[in-house]
C-alpha cells in the first residue's frame, strides 16, 4: 500500500521539473524503478532480493564510502576526504552497469552536491585555509578541482536538479519504492517513456549536436563518452536505435528542444569546448571522420569530372590507408575499396608502378583483415590472397625494371618512369603468407577433410616460394636470399623423398632430388653472411633431412660438427623445438641403422620427461603444477606444428623402449649384484615397475605391454618369445610398418634381440655351467658360430665374463672367479660396516675432551666385534681370502682415517 502512495508522491515531486502531462502518467511505473529501487529493504520478498543483490552490493559500497566521507568532512581531514571521493568515483564506476539500469542513485547525487557545497564553504573560509597543513591544503585544492570536473563531466544535470529541490531526496530516503511490477508495460512504452522521463538529461542536445556535424558518423560513442556515458546507456541505446531505424526525424527533436533545455545546453557547450582544448582524448574525433566518410561515399570514388591521374589515385590511396587500424574502419570495405581503386587505375592506364603499389596495399589489407592474431583467415580471403600474391609475383618477374624493397622511402618512390621504384617488400608478404598458412592448418581439425583441402594449398605456397626464390636470386640481397632459402628449406626438410634413399646398389644418383636441393640451399646458407638463427635452423633442417632419408653418418657428423647441443639452450623457442624434432629424427635414423646406443642416447632426453608431446610441439599437455595463463596457452598453441609435420609419438616411444630394452636387460643381468645399481634408462625402469605393480598381467595389448613382456622373456634369455612380443601383427600395424622399408628394420631388430639375449643368458646362467659348447649356443640362439664367437670373445675381453675359449673343442670354460651372490652381499655388508665404524669414530673424535662418555667406547668395540664374528661364519661357507683381507684393510683404514680426522679436528 505504501508503495503506491509513495510512487504517487514521487511522481508528484517530479512533476514540477517535468513538462509533459502524458509523460507523467506513465512515469510512476518507470521512473521510480530507475531512480530508487536501490532502497528496497526488509519487506520485499526473497526472490526480488536475489535479483538485486549485485546492485545492493554496489550501492552499499557507495553508501559506506559516503558515510566515511561525512565523518572525515566533520574533522576537515581533507586528505581523507579526497581519498574517499576517489574511492567513491571508483565505486560509481564499478556500479556503472547498475546505474545504467537503475538510474543514478539519489544519495550519490546528494553526496556530490553536499561535497561541492562543503568545498565552496571551506574555500570561503580563508582563515581556516591558512591554518591547515600543507598536505591538507594541497589535498583540498585537488579535491575541489576533481570534484568540479567530475560533476561537470558526468552529473551536472542531476546535481543541478538536486539543487532545485534538495528536500525531495531526504523525504524519500527511507521510502519503499514500488517494484517494477509492470515490466510488460515497461517494454511497450520503452522508448516513449524513457526518452521523456529524462527530459533534463542531455540526450536531446547530444543528438542535436551530432546531427549537423555528421549524419554519417555511425558510431557516436566518442561523443557520448565525453559527457554522459556513465550517465545512462539506455539513452545512448536509444540514440543508436534512432540512427539505425531512421526514426531520427526533425520533429522528434523539435518536440523536446523547446523543453527548456536550451539553457543547459549552452552551459554544457562551454565546458565541452574547454575540454576539447584540455584533453586530447577527443582528438580522435576528427580522424574517425576522416576514414568513415570515405566509406560512406564509396560508390563515387572520384568526382565525375575529376581527372584521374597518378597523384589523385595516390591521394585516394593515402586516404584509404590512413583509416587503417582505426576503430571504426570496416576492414572488408577497405579491401574492396583498394580493389576498386586498382581497377580504376588500371582502366585509366596509370602504369605498372601504381599497379604494383596497389597490389602491395591490397595484400597488406588482406593480411590486416583478421584483427585477432590467433584465429586464421577465412578460406575465401586466403584464396584471394594467394591469387593476388601470385599475380603480383608474376608482374614482378615479368618486369624486371620494377624495383621493390623496404629500403625505398616513400619520397623516393618512382611510379611513372622507367626504372620504377616501389616501396614494399615482397619477401615479407611471402613470409606473412607462410605464417598464415601454418595458422590455418593449426586451426583446422587435423583429421577432417578441411585439413586435407588446406594442405592442398601447400603446392601453391611452395610454388610461390620457389618463384620468389628465383626472383630474389636475381634481384635480392644476400639476406633476402637467405630468408627465402630458409623458407624453402622449411617446406622441404620434413618431406620424405623415396628417390633419395639409396638401396645400397650402385645406381646412378638421380638429378633434382630433394637431397640435392637441400644440399644446395643449406650450403649457401652456411657459407653466406647470414644471421646465426637462419644458419642454425638450416643446419637442423639439413640434419633432419639426412636422418629422414637414412643417411645416418652425414646426419650425425653434421650434428656433431655444428656443436648445437652446447648452445641450443640460448636460442629461441621455435628453434629449440626444431632441435628436438631433429634429435628425435636422428634417433629414429640411428635405430633403423642398428645403432641402438646412439638411438637411445638421442631419444633419452625427450622420452625421460614424459613430455614428448610438448617438447615436439605436437600438442599441449595439461600442466599439473601451475596452470598456465590463457596468454601462455595461446603462445604455446601458436608454436604447435601442423599435423602433417608430426612425428609419430608411439613409434618414438616404442623405438626408445626397444633400444632401452636391448641395452638395459644385459646390463641389469651383468650388474645384478652391484651395490648401487645405476640404470641406463629411468623411463624403461619405470615402465617395468609399473607392470610389476599390476596384480594381474594379461596378454600384452598396448605397445608398452608388448615391450615389457619382451623384456621379461629376454631376462631369461628366451629370445624367441622376446622376438615374438616385439615383432608381431599388432606391433607391425602399430609401429614397424610406419618405417620406410619395415622388413629391414625388423630383420635388424631380430638380430639384435638374438645377440643381446645371448649376452643376457651368459650373464645370468654362467654360474651354472662349467663349460659351454659354442655349437649349442649357436643353435640355441640361431646365430652363426662366428657371431657367437665374436660376442663371447668381446665379453671375455671386457671382463664381463670370467671364462676362456678352448678353440679345439669350441667350448667356453668358465673360471668361476666371480663371487657368488651371497659373497658379494657379504662384501657389500663389510663395506657398510666400515663406513659405520668410520662414522662412529668420527663421533668419538668430536666428543674427545668435551665430556666423558664411556659407554660409547664399549659400543664401539662391540660393533666391529659382531661383524668379525659374522665374517667368521661366512668363512665357514668357503669364503676365504677376501674377508681376512678386508679385516686387515679395515684396521689399515682406521689408522689412516684417524690421522685424517686428527688433522680435520684441528681445523674445527
Amino acid at each position: 500500500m505504501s508503495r503506491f502512495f509513495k510512487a504517487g508522491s514521487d511522481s508528484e515531486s517530479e512533476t514540477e521539473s517535468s513538462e509533459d502531462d502524458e509523460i507523467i502518467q506513465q512515469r510512476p511505473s518507470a521512473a521510480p524503478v530507475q531512480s530508487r529501487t536501490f532502497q528496497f529493504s526488509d519487506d520485499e520478498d526473497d526472490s526480488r532480493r536475489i535479483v538485486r543483490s549485485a546492485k545492493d552490493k554496489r550501492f552499499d559500497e557507495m553508501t559506506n564510502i559516503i558515510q566515511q566521507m561525512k565523518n572525515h568532512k566533520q574533522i576537515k581531514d581533507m586528505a581523507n576526504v579526497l581519498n574517499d571521493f576517489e574511492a567513491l568515483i571508483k565505486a560509481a564506476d564499478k556500479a556503472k552497469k547498475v546505474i545504467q539500469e537503475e538510474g543514478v542513485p539519489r544519495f550519490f547525487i546528494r553526496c556530490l552536491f553536499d561535497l561541492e557545497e562543503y568545498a565552496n564553504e571551506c574555500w570561503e573560509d580563508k582563515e581556516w585555509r591558512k591554518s591547515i597543513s600543507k598536505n591538507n591544503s594541497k589535498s583540498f585544492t585537488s579535491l575541489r578541482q576533481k570534484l568540479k570536473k567530475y560533476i561537470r563531466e558526468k552529473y551536472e544535470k542531476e546535481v543541478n536538479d538536486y539543487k532545485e529541490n534538495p528536500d525531495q531526496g531526504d523525504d524519500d530516503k527511507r521510502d519503499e519504492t514500488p517494484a517494477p511490477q509492470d515490466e510488460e508495460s515497461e517494454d511497450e512504452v520503452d522508448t516513449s517513456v524513457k526518452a521523456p522521463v529524462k527530459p533534463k538529461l542531455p540526450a536531446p542536445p547530444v543528438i542535436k549536436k551530432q546531427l549537423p556535424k555528421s549524419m554519417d558518423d555511425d558510431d557516436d560513442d566518442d561523443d557520448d563518452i565525453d559527457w554522459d556515458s556513465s550517465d545512462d546507456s539506455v539513452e545512448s541505446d536509444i540514440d543508436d536505435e534512432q540512427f539505425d531505424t531512421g526514426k531520427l526525424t526533425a520533429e522528434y527533436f523539435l518536440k523536446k528542444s523547446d523543453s527548456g533545455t536550451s539553457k543547459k545546453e549552452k552551459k554544457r557547450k562551454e565546458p565541452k569546448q574547454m575540454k576539447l582544448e584540455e584533453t586530447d582524448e577527443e582528438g580522435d574525433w576528427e580522424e574517425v571522420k576522416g576514414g568513415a566518410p570515405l566509406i560512406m561515399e564509396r560508390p563515387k570514388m572520384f568526382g565525375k569530372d575529376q581527372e584521374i591521374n597518378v597523384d589523385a589515385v595516390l591521394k585516394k590511396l593515402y586516404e584509404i590507408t590512413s583509416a587503417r587500424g582505426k576503430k571504426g574502419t570496416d576492414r572488408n570495405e577497405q579491401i574492396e575499396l583498394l580493389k576498386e581503386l586498382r581497377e580504376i587505375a588500371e582502366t585509366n592506364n596509370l602504369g605498372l608502378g601504381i599497379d604494383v603499389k596497389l597490389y602491395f596495399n591490397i595484400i597488406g589489407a588482406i593480411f590486416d583483415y583478421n584483427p585477432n592474431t590467433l584465429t586464421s583467415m577465412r578460406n575465401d580471403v586466403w584464396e584471394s590472397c594467394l591469387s593476388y600474391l601470385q599475380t603480383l609475383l608474376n608482374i614482378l618477374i615479368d618486369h624486371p625494371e620494377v624495383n621493390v624493397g623496404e629500403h625505398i622511402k616513400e619520397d623516393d618512390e618512382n611510379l611513372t618512369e622507367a626504372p620504377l621504384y616501389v616501396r614494399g617488400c615482397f619477401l615479407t608478404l611471402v613470409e606473412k603468407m607462410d605464417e598464415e598458412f601454418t595458422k590455418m592448418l593449426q586451426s583446422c581439425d587435423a583429421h577432417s577433410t578441411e585439413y586435407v583441402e588446406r594442405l592442398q594449398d601447400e603446392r601453391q605456397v611452395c610454388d610461390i616460394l620457389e618463384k620468389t626464390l628465383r626472383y630474389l636470386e636475381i634481384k635480392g640481397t644476400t639476406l633476402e636470399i637467405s630468408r627465402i632459402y630458409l623458407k624453402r628449406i622449411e617446406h622441404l626438410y620434413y618431406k620424405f623423398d623415396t628417390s633419395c634413399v639409396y638401396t645400397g646398389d650402385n645406381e646412378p644418383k638421380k638429378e633434382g632430388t630433394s637431397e640435392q636441393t637441400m644440399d644446395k640451399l643449406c650450403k649457401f646458407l652456411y657459407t653466406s653472411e647470414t644471421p646465426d638463427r637462419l644458419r642454425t635452423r638450416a643446419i637442423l633442417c639439413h640434419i633432419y633431412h639426412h636422418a629422414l632419408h637414412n643417411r645416418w653418418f652425414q646426419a650425425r657428423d653434421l650434428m656433431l660438427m655444428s656443436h648445437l647441443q652446447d648452445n641450443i639452450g640460448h636460442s629461441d623457442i621455435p628453434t629449440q623445438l626444431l632441435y628436438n624434432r631433429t634429435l628425435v629424427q636422428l634417433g629414429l635414423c640411428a635405430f633403423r641403422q642398428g645403432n641402438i646406443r646412439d638411438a637411445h642416447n638421442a631419444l633419452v632426453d625427450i622420452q625421460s620427461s614424459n613430455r614428448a608431446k610438448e617438447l615436439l610441439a605436437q600438442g599441449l599437455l595439461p600442466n599439473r603444477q601451475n596452470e598456465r595463463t590463457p596468454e601462455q596457452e595461446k603462445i604455446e598453441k601458436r608454436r604447435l606444428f601442423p599435423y602433417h609435420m608430426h612425428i609419430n609419438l608411439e613409434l618414438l616411444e616404442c623405438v626408445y623402449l626397444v633400444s632401452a630394452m636391448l641395452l638395459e636387460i644385459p646390463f641389469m643381468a651383468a650388474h645384478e649384484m652391484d651395490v648401487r645399481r645405476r640404470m641406463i634408462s629411468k623411463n624403461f625402469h619405470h615402465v617395468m615397475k609399473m607392470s610389476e605393480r599390476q596384480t594381474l598381467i594379461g596378454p600384452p595389448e598396448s605397445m608398452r605391454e608388448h615391450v615389457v613382456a619382451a623384456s621379461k622373456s629376454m631376462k631369461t634369455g628366451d629370445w624367441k618369445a622376446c622376438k615374438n612380443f616385439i615383432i608381431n601383427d599388432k606391433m607391425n600395424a602399430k609401429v614397424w610398418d610406419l618405417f620406410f622399408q619395415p622388413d629391414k628394420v625388423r630383420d635388424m631388430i631380430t638380430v639384435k634381440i638374438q645377440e643381446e639375449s645371448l649376452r643376457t643368458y651368459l650373464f645370468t646362467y654362467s654360474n651354472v655351467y662349467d663349460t659351454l659348447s659354442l655349437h649349442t649356443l649357436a643353435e640355441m640362439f640361431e646365430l652363426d658360430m662366428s657371431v657367437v664367437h665374436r660376442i663371447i670373445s668381446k665379453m671375455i675381453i671386457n671382463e664381463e665374463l670370467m671364462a676362456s675359449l678352448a678353440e679345439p673343442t669350441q667350448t667356453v670354460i668358465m673360471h668361476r672367479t666371480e663371487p657368488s651372490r651371497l659373497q658379494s652381499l657379504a662384501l657389500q655388508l663389510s663395506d657398510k660396516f666400515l663406513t659405520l665404524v668410520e662414522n662412529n669414530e668420527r663421533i668419538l673424535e668430536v666428543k674427545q675432551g668435551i665430556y666423558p662418555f664411556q659407554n660409547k667406547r664399549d659400543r664401539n668395540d662391540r660393533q666391529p666385534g659382531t661383524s668379525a664374528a659374522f665374517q667368521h661364519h661366512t668363512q665357514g661357507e668357503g669364503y676365504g681370502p677376501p674377508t681376512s683381507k678386508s679385516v686387515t684393510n679395515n684396521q689399515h683404514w682406521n689408522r689412516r682415517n684417524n690421522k685424517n680426522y686428527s688433522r680435520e679436528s684441528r681445523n674445527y
Partner: protein
Amino acid sequence: MATRKQRAPVQYVQLDGLVVLKLIKHCQEEGAGGTDLVQGVLLGLVVDNRLEITNCFPFPRHSEDQEDFNEVQYQMEMMRNLRHVNIDHLHVGWYQSTYFGTFINRPLIDSQYNYQDSIEESVVLIYDPLKTTQGFLSVKAYRLTPAMMKFHSENDFTTENITKHGMTFDKMFEEIPVVTKNSHLVNSLLCNLEEKDKEADKFNFLDLATSSMLQKNLRQLMECVDATTMDINKYLNCQRQIMRQQQAKQQYLQKRQQDNAMRAQRGEPPLPEEDLNKLFKPLQSPPRLDCLLYSGQIDNYCQQISSFSTQSLGKLFMAESLQNDGQSN
C-alpha cells in the same frame, strides 16, 4: 595391585598348544604367508612364577577407510564374550608375526611399554612363520626390562639420559623362556596320530638351501646398517654444531671479560650481564632411541644368522658324511 607387584617376576611362559595353533593359523590365513604382519591378543593367567597363556584371539584386519572401527571396544567385547563361555579372559600380552626377525622397532617398543605399564606381567610373543615352514617352530616371548621401562617412562631419549640409565641395545628386551604344554588328552591324541601317519615328511628341517635365507638376512642387515649410519651421521652433524656453538660462546665470554677488564681499568662500571642462553640457544641433540633400536635389530639379525649358520654347518657335515657313505658303499 600392590600385592601383585610384590610377586616374583614371571620366570617362564607356558604356552598352550591351542595358542600356538591359533597363532599359526592366523598368520597363515591373513599374513599372506608371512610377508604381512599380524597381531593379536594373548589371554591367560599368572601362576606362581610362570605365565600361562591359554588362549588368544587376533586383531581383526580393517582397511584404512573404516575409521570408525574401535579396536579397544572390539577387544573388550571379545573378552566379555569369552568370559561368558567361561574361557580365560585375562589380558596378558599380545603377539606379532615377524618377517626375518624384523621386529625391534619403535611401534613395538611403544605398545609393549603401554602393555607393561598397565598390565605388569604382559609379554609379547614373536612368531616367525618363515622359520616355522622350515621345520623350526619359532615362538619367542619378550618383555621390556625394568630399566627400559623406567627409561621409556621419562620419554627423554637424549644421550645424557641414556648414559644416566646405562641403557644399551642389549638391555632393552629380555627374553623369557617359552614352554609349550598340552593337556594329557591332546598328548595322547598326538601319539595316536603319529602312529597312524607314518609317511609324514618330517625332514624339511634338513633343507640344505642355505644361501637364499642368508641372502635375505644379509639384505635386511644391510638396510639396518644403512639406517644406523644415517642416524650416526645426523648425530655427528649435531655434535659439530654444538662444538661450533661452544667455541662461539667461549669467544664471546672471553671478549666480555677483556672488555670488562678494560672498563675496570678506566673505572667504568662493567657491562651488564646478558642471558647467554638467549644469545646461544642450546641445540637439541637428536633422540638416540632409534639408534638403540637399530643396534638391537642388528644384534638380533646377527644372532639369527649365527644360529642359522651353525645349524647349516651341521647339516652340511651330515650331508657330507652321508655322501661319503653312499660312495664307499
